[in-house]
């Protein structure tokens, strides 16, 4: 279980507990948090679960870098940044307790 903070583009924050093993995307969908569309349901096929991962966390949790499919999809997502990830590809671990992710303005 990890407590994750999702911050919408308009600044609205949502703090939820996500069980280990689920994806960061699923944590948002399960809790009906706006801003993550996840059209393909977590297949890394659509790039509509794009988030920015709080930079301090990238190092601390040793999050594996984006795979080639994820990187390819991300390179065409709207408004990407160096800390862009597809949240369906981040499997939650207990070590992610306190993780903060921010949502882009839109997913399409």
């Amino acid at each position, binding site marked *: 279980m990890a407590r994750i903070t999702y911050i919408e583009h308009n600044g609205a924050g949502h703090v939820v507990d996500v069980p280990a093993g689920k994806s960061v995307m699923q944590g948002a969908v*399960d809790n009906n948090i706006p801003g993550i569309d996840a059209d*393909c*349901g977590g*297949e890394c096929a*659509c790039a509509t679960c794009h988030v920015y991962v709080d930079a301090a966390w990238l190092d601390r949790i040793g999050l594996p870098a984006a795979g080639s499919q994820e990187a*390819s*999809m991300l*390179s*065409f997502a709207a408004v990407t940044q160096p800390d862009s990830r597809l949240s369906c590809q981040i499997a939650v671990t207990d070590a992610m307790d306190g993780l903060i992710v921010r949502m882009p303005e839109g997913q*399409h």
Partner: protein
Amino acid sequence: MSQDSRQIVIAGAGHAGGSAAALLRQFGWTGGITLIGEEPIPPYQRPPLSKAWLKGEATAESLALRPAKFYPDASIELRLETKVTGIDRTARTVTLSDGGTLAYHILILATGARARKLPLDGADLDGVLELRSAADADRLKAALHPGAKLAVIGGGYIGLEAAASARALGAEATIIERESRVLARVACPILSGFFQDFHRARGVTIEVDASVTALEGSRGRIAGVRLGDGRLVPCDAVLVGVGAVANDELAREAGLTCHNGVAVDLSARTEDPAIFAIGDCTSRPLPLYDRTGRLESVPNALEQAKQAASAICGKPAPVPEVPWFWSDQYDLRLQIAGMPFDASQIVVRGDVAAAKFALFHLTADGTVQAVEAVNAAPEFMGGRRIVAKRKQLTRARIEDMSVSMQELAG
């Protein structure tokens, strides 16, 4: 929430209906929401049914669109194993299969589509299967074990994905296709040829130009598929995957215009301002292509759920999306952006033999209408952008792999 007595009734608890209910809450709807579904389980994702679910790589929990507790938490009344059987547009009520009646301020039809049946002798034999629901998938899964023989009637996406899953489980698979190539209705000949070769190389038998005259069995159970040329394809189970039919009868009987699906506008609204329709059951505008059509896809279900929820909650209409589709078979990922309605030329980018390529469909003036990408995510993502912009490209530039997709899409 208690002060708002307005009621939204959603007929159909599939991907479209389930998503609409959730989006209405996201967008601030404070009235009641009743979500009515025929199946015994809450809304779930259908795409994995022919893939991960068949192969035992998904759980019921991972299929669920949202956890069961989401519905009571969000004050969404979920009525399962129930069907809307009639609409009284004047009284604004629906009748239910359990004999009840519900009043609505807004009705959303999300009744989906059903598998087309084959009007053949033997279609009622045990082991004659279709694949739309989780229950269908469980029946198919039970039939797929090492050495089992699966016959698939119809070389569409469902048939190809099921054949790939069957092979992964050690079963034998024969695809029987009426047309001269698989995916004849939905893909170009190059893509059809590629998929045929790929499946055959993995042990799938593909019969094209093959009509089916009967399903034969003994003691009430399927034993084989009789072809028009007299041959029998022996099998332990047969999957019928010959397309889907819109469940638009409810709308038809209520006097709403239907042309292969319930006619809706870009807000997913029918001609009755109190009734919306979303997902597989609709005939919708395709603004990029200046025509209307019925799309069977999850992205379409989600887009229309968003359109309806936005209109109902007074939010700005979402920007129309490029229709897109995906299919996973073996280690292939097919992603399609757009639809090649008026395309007259196909340009290949990449290497078909290496199973890493994209097919660009261009109209006579070079406008890219669709991109079919196999294991080529940048081509798909860039293609989606190019199609959205109705961008014109030359054959030479598309073929030139030294020109990046970023450049092509820019």
